[in-house]
């Protein structure tokens, strides 16, 4: 109701033919286009583009998910199969294992990135000499294409010709050919966490830095006056005021890592076996290698609903934390 009245007020003020600027603050009639017209003019292209590229295809995909469409066998008659695709997916044990693999990946990588990123931010906030230069260095992995990163790490992880195993053997004495980061069932899931953290810990670091810098100095000074120890200051000032930023970092990284496809696909192809096959990889294989369009549309919708629901809950929690 509030919004409605404001718009009506604006409209009222926009009578045509008026010339000269209005002097009153409440009437927003100005020369040229009315505010309402401008608002719609500015927002419409964005909404239109999103409708065309996101919403219309999403609706199309919902329709497809009820069919048996297979693009590589398009000569077969198209059948409406109702909820068969959804039933297939939700009762398929393999799909649940993939979701589990993805969840493990998201949780481990985000936790590690937040720990390292926050730690780095705390250290850099000390503003030692040259910190700006070293910060830029730490940011470099983030600027690479994840696909290219996944690809060249296969070379780095190669037991015979890659430097990673040799470096580890220098420190631990393990022979380089005795383990394979991308080939062993026990190691592969941690390898993708490692490479992802290498790329994105700097991102979390930036967010935390912004958070740390936003804490005004006078709060610390007041704590000093109260003779609070550094540890106490950290717990009651730094950490609580950075929590909203940390939660923001967790949200972004979790969403991104749930969608992860390129880096992992090029690093391990989802292997060995299917131990690092994330849901996006399963989706790509179903949609663009098996060409099971109907089935993969259903899977995509299930994934979207999952993420959307989880993000919704999380953002509401985040807003509550921000208000505190």
């Amino acid at each position: 109701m509030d919004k409605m009245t404001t718009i009506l007020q604006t409209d009222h003020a926009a009578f045509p033919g008026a010339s000269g600027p209005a002097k009153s603050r409440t009437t927003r009639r100005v020369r040229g286009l009315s505010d309402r017209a401008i608002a719609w003019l500015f927002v419409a292209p964005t909404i239109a583009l999103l409708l065309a590229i996101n919403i219309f295809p999403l609706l199309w995909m919902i329709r497809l998910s009820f069919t048996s469409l297979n693009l590589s066998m398009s000569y077969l008659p198209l059948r409406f199969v109702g909820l068969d695709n959804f039933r297939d997916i939700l009762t398929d044990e393999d799909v649940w294992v993939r979701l589990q693999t993805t969840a493990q990946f998201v949780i481990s990588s985000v936790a590690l990135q937040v720990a390292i990123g926050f730690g780095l931010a705390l250290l850099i906030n000390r503003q030692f000499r040259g910190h700006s230069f070293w910060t830029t260095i730490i940011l470099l992995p983030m600027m690479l294409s994840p696909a290219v990163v996944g690809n060249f790490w296969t070379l780095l992880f190669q037991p015979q010709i890659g430097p990673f195993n040799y470096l580890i053997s220098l420190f631990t004495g393990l022979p380089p050919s005795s383990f394979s980061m991308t080939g062993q069932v026990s190691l592969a899931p941690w390898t993708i966490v490692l490479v992802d953290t290498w790329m994105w810990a700097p991102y979390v670091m930036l967010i935390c830095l912004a958070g740390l810098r936003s804490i005004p100095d006078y709060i610390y000074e007041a704590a000093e006056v109260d003779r609070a120890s550094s540890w106490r200051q950290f717990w009651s000032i730094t950490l609580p005021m950075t929590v909203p930023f940390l939660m923001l970092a967790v949200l972004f990284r979790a969403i991104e890592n749930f969608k992860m496809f390129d880096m992992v696909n090029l690093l391990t192809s989802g292997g060995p076996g299917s131990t690092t096959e994330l849901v996006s990889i399963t989706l790509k294989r179903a949609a663009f290698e098996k060409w099971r369009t109907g089935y993969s549309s259903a899977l995509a919708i299930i994934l979207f609903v999952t993420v959307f629901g989880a993000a919704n809950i999380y953002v509401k929690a985040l807003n509550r934390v921000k208000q505190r």
Partner: protein
Amino acid sequence: MRTLKWLRSTTASAVLGAAALGVFGGGEAAAEGKQLTLCWAAWDPANALVELGKDFTKQSGIEMKYEFVPWTSYADRFLNELNSHGKLCDLIIGDSQWIGGAAENKWYVKLNDFFDKEKISMDDFVPATVVGYSQWPKNSPNYWALPAMADAVGWTYRKDWFSRPEIQAAFKAKYGRDLAPPKSYDELKQIAEFFQGREIDGKKVYGAYIFTERGSEGITMGVTNVLYNYGFNYDNPKKAYQMQGVVNSADAAKGLEFYKELYKCCTAPGMTNAYMQEGLDAFKSGQVAMQMNWFAFFPGLYKDPNVGGDKIGFFVNPAGPNGHFTQLGGQGISVVATSDHKEDALSYIKWFAQPAVQQKWWQLGGYSALKAVVDAPDFPKSAAFAPQFLESMGIVKDFWAEPSYAQLLLDMQKRVHDYVVADKGTAQQALDLLVKDWTKVFKEQGKEVASQ
């Protein structure tokens, strides 16, 4: 503010220009004179084809453009292209397994009338290649491609290591027979175990290299070479699509177990996702004594300065307890149905089918499927691997070529890699699950699948 304006105006014009380019330059550029685009995989034979194609350009005045894609993304990219009715390719050398889908979906031009008109007879080509690369349905006279590249899985070995007296002596002492290229898989495993971990010329070497790639078709193209020879079949020869007890017979499970044992005991470390390229690297850098790979690469290996010439030998895929087969590779050349230059494309095929051109194709490093070339009396002497190639083409067996072949292949990739590399379950379980997967695919297609 002025800088901002300038920035916006220059970027605005850049974007307008980009958009214009996107609209007008996004499609095919209008070509001066005639031109054909040929799509294939990026490997040695493709380079040979480029050389060969220069003759065609000289004869016909049609310029040849090529689109070569690495093997690991070859199927993805071109099936995508064919599915989206793209105009990129006029001619395509598509994989043998695509034939079913291509015929049913009308991606390729049917060539029967063309062959009749130009008097090109399929009887002139090696029968296995006609069935494998050109026919759909199989064993019916419907032709969708001209056999272009005959290929199969073969093996290379370090002949120079095998001829060293001290190595021969050590082998004879251990196994009681002479060291020679293996004729059976048991012999191959013995040789691989013998070389595994041995020091040669100051470096540790390994026994064998086999395919283990997960993403496209690698491990399947490797494991079938063992499975066929243990008695594995895709379906009952007497009853189409009847797979239970045929795909997952006890013998087949033994074959799968053998492949895993070979992988675990006698291969180089880190080869958990390896296909053609890694094999070449491993062999050329002196890491392995024997390498499984496609005949297509053998001309290049023979010419290699480090391991070629006298140092390299070749042998046919060894036999197993229940058969002697090898996995069929190779491709046929087809005309894409959505091409705007079908006439020119057909003229290329007509040129390519000539015996003289086929002979030159073999000499340049391609593998001709023409009987006149491979049945010629001096063919076995024309290259070090020619006898093995001839023998192999007589014992080839291919994977499913159904329109749903991609699903069948990916299912097998998953089950086999899960078992062999990721240690999941037993061989019998893997094959049982595979039968379940395949049954589901065929049922979705509307085929009748008998349970015995």
